[in-house]
């Protein structure tokens, strides 16, 4: 098995060079295209994408260079063997024809030192996600490929072209929720006039107005900063952050989440950069850790002020740091006692 990938790569290069010399348009596809773009290396077979009309000539030149053609029962590909290595020549992946435009979208890349066209990453994911079905829907195989190629892909295009497949939708949902790929830009595709009516339904109009008016007053979080702040007011003239001075609750959920995240970092009552804010179906969810129960309460307070009318689910844990003398530990089990001396020091050598 150790040698299998090397044997596969030799066959891959041999087929690619033969097709190039014969001027037959093609693109490297399948899991080797993923590998060429940074994914895990496959151990099974080699896939090339060709237009159906070019397949006979491709088989001819490959046979002439010593490969053994096989005529499989499937009607969407043909196969050639290079020794024991199976090479698929695919012309109708997932029932869709390989087109000249698709081959032109492929990019010339160096694959194990041989330059060849490699299927476009967006096309690649359309095929891969559409290939998921009831008996083959292991996301554990797909997610590493998404991680490896995510920045090379037009995910909106993938969403559009795979919209009919519930398996593709599931894979994209998981990838979105894992923050691997950008979320669907809610509201934007519907046009700017629809944004205000946007994702939150009928209540949005009135609460939105409240949010904006408090924002115009300079931001509730920041006006409250003075009394707490000792000798200096951190929000002097010109220091008021424009973006987060009250959040606009009428905008798309992910922007609202981003603004609230920044607000929690900048409001002196919380001043926590590590809290994660998400907005789903109008509900604001915040998770993470703060040091004290007072700061946890401040999180809710700041979010309520900034996004008036929106329900806030505060799932923030209190780490209650230090806690030497039996202080109550809330949240994750840091435990009581300082722990000093009870655990061995690491020896640096």
């Amino acid at each position, binding site marked *: 098995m150790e040698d299998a990938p090397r044997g596969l790569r030799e066959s891959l290069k041999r087929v690619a060079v033969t097709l190039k010399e014969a001027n037959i348009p093609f693109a490297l596809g399948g899991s080797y295209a993923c590998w060429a773009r940074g994914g895990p290396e496959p151990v099974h077979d080699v896939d090339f994408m060709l237009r159906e009309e070019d397949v006979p000539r491709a088989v001819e030149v490959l046979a002439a260079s010593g490969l053994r053609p096989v005529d499989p029962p499937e009607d969407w590909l043909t196969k050639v063997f290079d020794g024991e290595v199976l090479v698929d020549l695919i012309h109708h992946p997932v029932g869709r024809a390989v087109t000249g435009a698709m081959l032109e979208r492929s990019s010339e890349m160096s694959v194990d030192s041989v330059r060849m066209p490699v299927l476009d990453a967006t096309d690649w994911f359309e095929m891969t996600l559409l290939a998921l079905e009831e008996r083959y829907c292991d996301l554990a195989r797909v997610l590493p490929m998404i991680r490896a190629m995510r920045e090379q892909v037009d995910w909106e295009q993938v969403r559009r072209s795979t919209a009919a497949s519930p398996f593709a939708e599931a894979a994209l949902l998981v990838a979105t929720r894992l*923050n691997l790929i950008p979320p669907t830009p809610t509201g934007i595709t519907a046009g700017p006039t629809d944004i205000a009516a946007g994702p939150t339904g009928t209540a949005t109009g009135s609460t939105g107005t409240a949010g904006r008016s408090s924002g115009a007053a300079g931001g509730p979080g920041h006006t409250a900063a003075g009394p*707490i*702040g*000792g*000798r*200096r007011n*951190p929000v002097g003239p010109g220091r008021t952050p424009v973006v987060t001075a009250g959040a606009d609750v009428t905008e798309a959920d992910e922007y609202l989440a981003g603004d609230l995240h920044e607000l929690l970092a900048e409001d*002196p009552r919380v*001043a926590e950069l*590590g809290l994660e804010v998400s907005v789903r179906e109008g509900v604001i969810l915040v998770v993470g*850790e703060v*040091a*004290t129960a*007072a*700061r946890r309460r401040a999180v809710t307070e700041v979010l309520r002020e900034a996004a008036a009318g929106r329900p806030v689910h505060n799932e923030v844990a209190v*780490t209650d*740091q*230090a*806690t*030497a*003398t039996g*202080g109550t530990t809330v949240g*994750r089990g*840091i435990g009581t006692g*300082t*722990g*000093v*001396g009870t*655990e*061995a*020091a*690491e*020896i*640096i*050598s």
Partner: protein
Amino acid sequence: MIRIAAVGDIHLGTDSGGSFAPVVHDLIGHADVLLLAGDLTQHGRVAEARVVAAEVASAQLPVLAVLGNHDYHDDAEDEITRILVDAGVTVLEGTGTVLDIAGTRLGVAGVKGFGGGFAGASCSEFGEPLMKSFVRHSRERAASLGAAFEDLTCDIRVALTHYAPVPDTLIGERAEIYPFLGSYHLAEVIDAAGVDLALHGHAHAGSERGTTAGGVPVRNVARPVIGKSVARYEIAQDGCGDLAGSAPPASRVPAGEADSRAPS
């Protein structure tokens, strides 16, 4: 053998009085020095710095600290430094100090550091003035750490920063924010200075252990990362973690450099 206790990102607020002093007290007999890796306060306020000062004022061991980005937030870093110094804390910013610990000279140089990213994925001094000053600040802070080490004559060298010198200890953070979490320029000077241990904080979701390209162990001691009040490290003068402590002092530096650091 030097016993180091370290923690970063304690983020004390005006509501945190009494929370850290017990930790400092319990270090008696377990550590020779306490290093604080920045973000001592929650919002960089003078009132918060007074809380920090009160918590460490009665420490029975040397306390060394760098400030973090939170400690700069209220533009009061100078006054915060003064308050900490008055409480007996050695605040390092492009400076170093040498402690004699039972005959072994521990040299600690510290700097806040800054972001900018890591080799191959870093910002450069190019484009808008703000971008250039961002990167310049990072380079200058790193260079000041290198200069601080040049001035130290000691047996064991420890670097203390707030920002991370390597990406290893950021694993767990989103890769997209690495350039805000540290700079490889810090690792460059840490390697050049022949440091024995580099400690930093800042990356709460990162991981504890890493190594510079030059092989220097790096530890992220941000409190959420270590999951306890302090992390403790022991460094033997011969670099072998000699627990007996009976080995004669041996220089760890190559012969060619030995005279500048030889025990006196």
